């Protein structure tokens, strides 16, 4: 059975060919249409992606005419696609310098490269915004430029933040420069230490004054970096150094006179300084201290010259005044041949010369103190009860003159021995008792009391007095200070009595102060360490 196997090449059968062609065509059509469908879907997908991208994307032709803009671009610029078509991006741009656009065109069109840069544009509502722009040339398969695709990312917020930062940074730089300029140019030396006393800052003036170099002392302990002495050349122990005191107490301190502290510089030259030390408090805790100091040499010299002047003048004054005192004394002593009127004049003369002598003696005392001459010399053992008893006898005549009585109360029995100078102690008693007499109403008593406590003897002088306000109390022991009331009662006073008393008592290791200060009773007191206590202590 070979009927189905051709033995000759078969002849073309038209009825056979047509269906084959048709079927191939159908196959191709199906194939093509399928392919087309998938390409359409891809493009749609791409378009959808473009549309929904939040970034601004536009496509232009080679001349920059807008062909397409996505929603992001519409949103960012405020123009819709219809408004954009037929325009270039200049519609919202053109705010940059010409150079910028020139470079943009050169890059994208001449070099066919991607251009990117920060650009400032303007929205339809006239708001300006910053964008990071990126333009890529679109090249077809044949290598021809067909247009550009441009994206913009809104960086306005970032730019604003950057700008704010820049402004803040500038402010900081400016403030820092200002501070540094102030620190560098201020005439005062300044340094700061941390809680442990390490130097954390020092200005140029302090370097110069202390004779140190910043780099050698930063992070070093200040007390190792430079030494401090008192005026007499004795080293000041660490715990007494003012910075240390401020670090441990947290209280601001200020030197009253430049003579107290002296920095010792390299080569052992000395520098008397006056300073203010302020604690650095963080949350109430001391975290360091700032020291501002100045060269006190000149000040000290002026002070010294001033005091020397007072000293010389007062000694010079003493000569005629002591003569006057003695002459009037002699006149009074030998006044039997004088008329009663003349006798009265002589008496007035005696009073006046005594007052004059008193004033000059105050000046002498004051200048001694200012010259740092010890107020106390010729130290002796003194029994306080006896001493005051004797002293009060001397004062009684003065008290009687002013119609006062002095009442001496002795509450403490037994000897109260102190080691001090009779002259200095007399001066203190005289100043306090004569104040009590001078500033209290006539015919009222002045009471003197002695008390003993904690190794000290406490002397209290009380009188009916004139009330002293809180404000006045705070100045009472300052030199030349006088209350308004005191000026009225005794215009010729100098305001040195309490100051001198304070200096003497403090030098003796005691304290002086004011107890009550109302019109009923004014009490001044002072303390002196007892000898027994001093022995026990040693």
């Amino acid at each position, binding site marked *: 059975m070979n009927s189905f196997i051709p033995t000759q090449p078969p002849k073309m059968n038209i009825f056979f060919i047509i269906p084959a062609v048709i079927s191939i065509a159908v196959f191709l059509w199906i194939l093509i249409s399928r392919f087309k469908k998938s390409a359409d879907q891809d493009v749609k997908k791409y378009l959808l992606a473009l549309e929904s991208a939040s970034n601004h994307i536009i496509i232009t032709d080679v001349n920059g005419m807008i062909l397409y803009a996505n929603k992001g671009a519409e949103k960012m610029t405020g123009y819709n696609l219809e408004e954009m078509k037929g325009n270039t991006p200049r519609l919202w741009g053109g705010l940059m310098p010409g150079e910028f656009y020139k470079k943009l065109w050169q890059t994208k069109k001449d070099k066919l490269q991607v251009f990117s840069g920060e650009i400032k544009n303007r929205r339809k509502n006239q708001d300006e915004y910053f964008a990071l722009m990126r333009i890529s040339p679109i090249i077809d398969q044949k290598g021809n430029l067909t247009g550009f695709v441009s994206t913009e990312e809104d960086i306005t917020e970032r730019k604003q933040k950057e700008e704010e930062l820049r402004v803040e940074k500038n402010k900081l730089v400016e403030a820092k420069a200002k501070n540094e300029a102030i620190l560098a140019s201020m005439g005062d030396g300044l340094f700061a230490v941390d809680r442990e006393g390490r130097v954390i800052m020092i200005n140029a003036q302090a370097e110069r004054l202390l004779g140190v170099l910043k780099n050698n002392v930063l992070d070093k302990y200040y007390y190792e970096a430079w030494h401090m002495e008192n005026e007499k050349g004795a080293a000041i122990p660490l715990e007494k150094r003012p910075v240390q005191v401020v670090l441990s107490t947290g209280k601001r301190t200020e030197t009253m006179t430049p003579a107290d502290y002296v920095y010792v510089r390299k080569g052992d030259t000395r520098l008397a300084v006056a300073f203010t030390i302020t604690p650095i408090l963080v949350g109430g805790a001391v975290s360091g201290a700032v020291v501002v100091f100045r060269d006190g040499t000149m000040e000290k010299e002026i002070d010294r010259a001033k005091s020397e002047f007072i000293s010389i003048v007062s000694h010079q004054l003493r*000569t005629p005044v002591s003569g006057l005192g003695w002459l009037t*004394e002699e006149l009074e002593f030998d006044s039997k041949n004088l008329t009663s009127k003349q006798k009265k004049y002589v008496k007035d003369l005696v009073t006046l010369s005594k007052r004059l002598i008193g004033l000059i003696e105050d000046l002498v005392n004051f200048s001694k103190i200012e010259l740092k001459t010890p107020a106390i010399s010729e130290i002796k053992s003194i029994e306080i009860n006896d001493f005051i008893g004797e002293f009060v006898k001397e004062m009684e005549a003065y008290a009687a003159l002013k119609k006062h009585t002095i009442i001496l109360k002795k509450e403490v029995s037994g000897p109260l021995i102190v080691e001090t100078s009779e002259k200095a102690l007399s001066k203190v008693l005289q100043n306090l008792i004569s104040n009590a007499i001078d500033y209290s109403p006539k015919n009222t008593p002045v009471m003197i009391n002695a008390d003993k406590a904690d190794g000290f003897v406490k002397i209290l002088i009380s009188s009916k007095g004139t009330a002293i306000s809180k404000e006045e109390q705070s100045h009472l022991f300052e030199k030349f200070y006088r209350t308004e009331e005191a000026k009225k009662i005794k215009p010729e006073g100098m305001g040195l009595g309490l100051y001198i008393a304070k200096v003497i008592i403090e030098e003796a290791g005691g304290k002086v102060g004011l107890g009550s200060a109302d019109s009923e009773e004014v009490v001044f007191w002072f303390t002196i360490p007892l000898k027994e206590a001093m022995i026990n202590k040693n």
Partner: protein
Amino acid sequence: MLNVLKDRFEADDWEVSVAHDGEEAIQAIEKESSKSKFDLVLLDLLMPKKDGFSVLRDIKNNPELKNLSIIVLSNLGGDEDIKKALALGAKDYFVKTQHPMSEIVEKAKKYKSGGASAKTKN
């Protein structure tokens, strides 16, 4: 000044010699010393020609005079001056303004070395 003090001492029955400068004083004291006449010297410090400290030193260096009582009477009131005068052998030191004459006359009695005569200077 000097005369007032002289009058006052004379009123208190002292016999008084006066010198107006340091040299005059030391000469007078040495001249009179052989007779041991002076009981007391009241010595000022600021004097022409020779100051009180030198006079004090001369007196104390002279074996015949060293027991003579000397009181310094000066307008200088510095602690250094006082210490120096006392160290040189003065019996006492008075700052003129701080003591009335009556007190000085009183103290003089206490310090006189014997007899009844005194010398004031300047």
